[in-house]
């Protein structure tokens, strides 16, 4: 099967990419960084965080760049006032949904949500905060999950399934009630499938899953993405 090439414009710059490339990847290859929180190179895209929304000329709708494939003649705008406004709103909704308090969080200064808020100039949350009081599970020997800090990006679930290949983690319930669970909603310490590989903690963009007693900057070293890609490409 031959792979064709698609010609499109990203922020006015003409680019050629293989067909079926997602806009996010096409933009990245041409040096345009689209903000995202749920995307993780090496695992499937999820389209959950909605930060990578872009404009495509001819449509009033916004499209998530990570799961929208390129097509011929497409004209993509990745950064407009409207998109900035929406992205700020998305970050505020994520902050409002659960109890995110940076100053007492294990991931302070190493958190992608915090960094995103700072980068986008989110200086307050205009929505009323929903002070969640979800269970913190520290029954595992060293892995801890604080669901109050979870942004439901599902990175942990995807690495657990697609890289480690065990699918210990999954989601239960829907919408804002969604929770990351282990096995059939067991306590983590009782999970019979978890291999304690730590990948979930490594890819967590916030402080929801962390390793007890390990400095967070060590856990969240950025080389994990390359590690994942390398493992994935190893035949």
């Amino acid at each position, binding site marked *: 099967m031959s792979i064709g090439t698609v010609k499109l414009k990203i922020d006015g710059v003409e680019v050629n990419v293989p067909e079926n490339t997602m806009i996010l990847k096409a933009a990245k290859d041409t040096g345009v960084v689209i903000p995202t929180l749920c995307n993780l190179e090496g695992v499937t895209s999820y389209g959950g965080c909605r930060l990578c929304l872009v404009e495509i000329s001819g449509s009033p709708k916004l499209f998530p760049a990570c799961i929208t494939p390129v097509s011929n003649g497409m004209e993509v705008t990745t950064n407009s006032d409207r998109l900035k406004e929406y992205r700020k709103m998305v970050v505020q909704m994520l902050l409002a949904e659960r109890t995110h308090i940076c100053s*007492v969080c294990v991931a302070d200064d190493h958190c992608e949500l915090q960094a995103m*808020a700072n980068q986008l100039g989110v200086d307050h949350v205009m929505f009323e905060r929903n002070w969640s009081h979800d269970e913190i599970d520290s029954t595992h020997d060293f892995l801890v999950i604080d669901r109050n800090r979870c942004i439901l990006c599902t990175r942990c679930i995807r690495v657990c399934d697609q890289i480690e290949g065990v699918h210990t983690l999954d989601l239960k319930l829907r919408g804002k009630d969604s929770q990351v669970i282990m096995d059939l909603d067991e306590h983590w310490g009782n999970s019979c499938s978890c291999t304690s590989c730590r990948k979930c903690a490594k890819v967590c963009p916030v402080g929801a899953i962390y390793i007890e007693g390990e400095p967070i900057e060590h856990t969240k070293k950025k080389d994990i993405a390359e590690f994942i890609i390398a493992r994935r490409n190893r035949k």
Partner: protein
Amino acid sequence: MTKSPKIRVATVWLSGCSGCHMSFLDIDERLIDLAKKITVVYSPIADVKEFPENVDVTLIEGAVANEEQLEMLKKVRTRTKILISLGDCAVDGNVTALRNSWRKSDQAILERAYKDPTDLNAAIPNAVPKLLVNARPLHEIVKVDFYIPGCPPHADLIYYVLTELLAGRTPIMEGRSKYG
């Protein structure tokens, strides 16, 4: 134009740890330049009993956690032109709002503080201002004009916002503000 009068600035301390005020003082020697342009008319570090009228800029530290603070905030709003939320507690609730996750946290927190630690004559005092059910950020109650997040906000950031306002410009927080 004649010499313009000094800008009247006030700072208010609600439910916070005073760290934001410390950070304000960390502006250090630049305070001397600032003092040429502003006059502090009300502050926890100045002995003024009543919040004055006609204040140009008020920086408020801390979340609103009780009825006295609620009243104070409303009074400040009517007497000040530009209101600034200073620090994560004022902006977001922060540590002060940690209690919000508990149901009926106003009662729970008093019981934890006054009843749990003692078996002897445990009683919750009634002479202190009544706690609000939730500790709340300022902008949920009154209109806030500018936000300086941070726990505490960096002195440079406070200085930046103040000098921009003094120069008649709007401070741009993008890439500058920082939670936590």
